[in-house]
């Protein structure tokens, strides 16, 4: 659980037709590339991880295997709820064997199936919950606060609107650092839209549009809450 809190932030939001994942790209130095935190599991499922990336990769491989095995036998995509339970059971085993250690990674699982759009959070403890919107990783509280105020209207949002809100939430976690498309990764899955990572150029366009119009709006909204809570977000 601590490992998850130390990893860089990942957030997820859901409407009835789309699910969006967004992560902050942390680089160990200016020279290196950033760690991959968003994985496509199947056409209809993707995950964002926070914590020990290596553990995340292993679990992603497990999830991809489960999905493809199910598709092969049943020629239908694996329902997201069932994948999440299998993942949780796998994590639970590590909490009950003395010679194992828990997977040090939290996963935000986003997916579409017959029953609609889903966003789940899988803990290292083996617990999982379904969310309308959630944030994990370092400085995720800032994002969570932002989402808490906005989530009630998410059901009707289109994919674009969800992405915009996700970028705002990412901005919260950056706490003053400049938001550019290099710093974050955004992925979306929805009705008729297989899971894919949104193009960097498009993200930069949306960020630029945000700077112009959104900042003023966001500032107004945050004015009341932030002064009382003492959490800093945008220092303009």
């Amino acid at each position, binding site marked *: 659980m601590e490992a998850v809190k130390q990893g860089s932030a990942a957030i997820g939001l859901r409407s009835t037709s789309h699910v969006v994942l967004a992560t902050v790209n942390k680089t160990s130095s200016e020279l290196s590339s950033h760690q991959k935190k968003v994985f496509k599991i199947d056409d209809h499922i993707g995950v964002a991880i926070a914590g020990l990336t290596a553990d995340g990769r292993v679990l992603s491989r497990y999830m991809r295997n489960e999905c493809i095995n199910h598709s*092969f*036998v*049943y*020629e*239908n995509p694996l*329902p997201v*709820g*069932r994948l999440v*339970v299998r993942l949780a059971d796998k994590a639970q085993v590590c909490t009950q064997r003395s010679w194992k250690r828990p997977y040090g990674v939290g996963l935000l699982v986003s997916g579409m*199936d*017959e*029953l609609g759009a889903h966003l789940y959070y899988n803990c290292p403890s083996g617990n999982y919950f379904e969310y309308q919107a959630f944030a994990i990783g370092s400085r995720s509280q800032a994002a969570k606060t932002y989402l808490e105020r906005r989530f009630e209207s998410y059901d009707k949002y289109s994919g674009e609107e969800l992405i915009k809100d996700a970028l705002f939430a990412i901005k919260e976690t950056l706490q003053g650092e400049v938001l550019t498309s290099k710093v974050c990764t955004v992925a979306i899955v929805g009705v008729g839209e297989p899971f894919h990572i949104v193009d960097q150029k498009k993200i930069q366009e949306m960020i630029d549009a945000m700077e112009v119009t959104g900042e003023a709006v966001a500032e107004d909204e945050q004015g009341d809450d932030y002064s009382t809570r003492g959490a800093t977000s945008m220092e303009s």
Partner: protein
Amino acid sequence: MQNLMGSPMEMELERTLYPYVTGSSVLAIKYKYGILMAADTGGSYGSTLRFKDIQRIKTIGKHSLLGAGGEISDFQEILKYLDELIVYDNMWDDGNSLGPKELHNYLARVMYDRRNKFNPLWNSLVLAGIKNGEKYLGVVTMLGVHYKDNYVATGFGNYLAVPILRKEWRDDLSIEEAMKILEKCMRILLYRDRSSINKYQIAEITDIEATIFSPYSLKTFWGFSAFKEPAKSAEGSW
């Protein structure tokens, strides 16, 4: 000591070499609101018509019907393991359920795998179902060949019934029209397939429910001139 995948737990390998008690054709046709399936209730023991009350169509879960021709004991085995599959599916209790498409593909995988091990389940299966308003009708053979269509038949039905179905099937048949077409096919099979009997079960599946009706018989007419003088067209010594 066997499981559905045909590998016994002990060393000695037993294989299916030939079928013993067999069912004859199965017919199925999509109509406007669902799918109708028909099969006779006979089980032949070689050339003897040994059993006259075998139900060869069963409901699977909430959404599907499975009809089988071929070895009856293999059909019973398939039903037992499909039952287990459905039970586990229900145990998830999460709103998801196995639909006809999933079952069709699952059966195709099993049949093909058994064929590869040279230990086939000696059946021709017809899988019919509806889920969320979408009708599904498919066939799986003992070789693992599988396909779906608007109307299907197994065994002799492939040769005798399918041409009739091909000519008469339409997208929006009412249930009465579909029944008439099926009965026409069943009657031809009764005349010409020696392993068929005059006792049929029709099963219907719609979005609301699946029903298997009680067995009934067709009226037959044997007064055709060809039947009265069967040797008429067999003149000569060769």
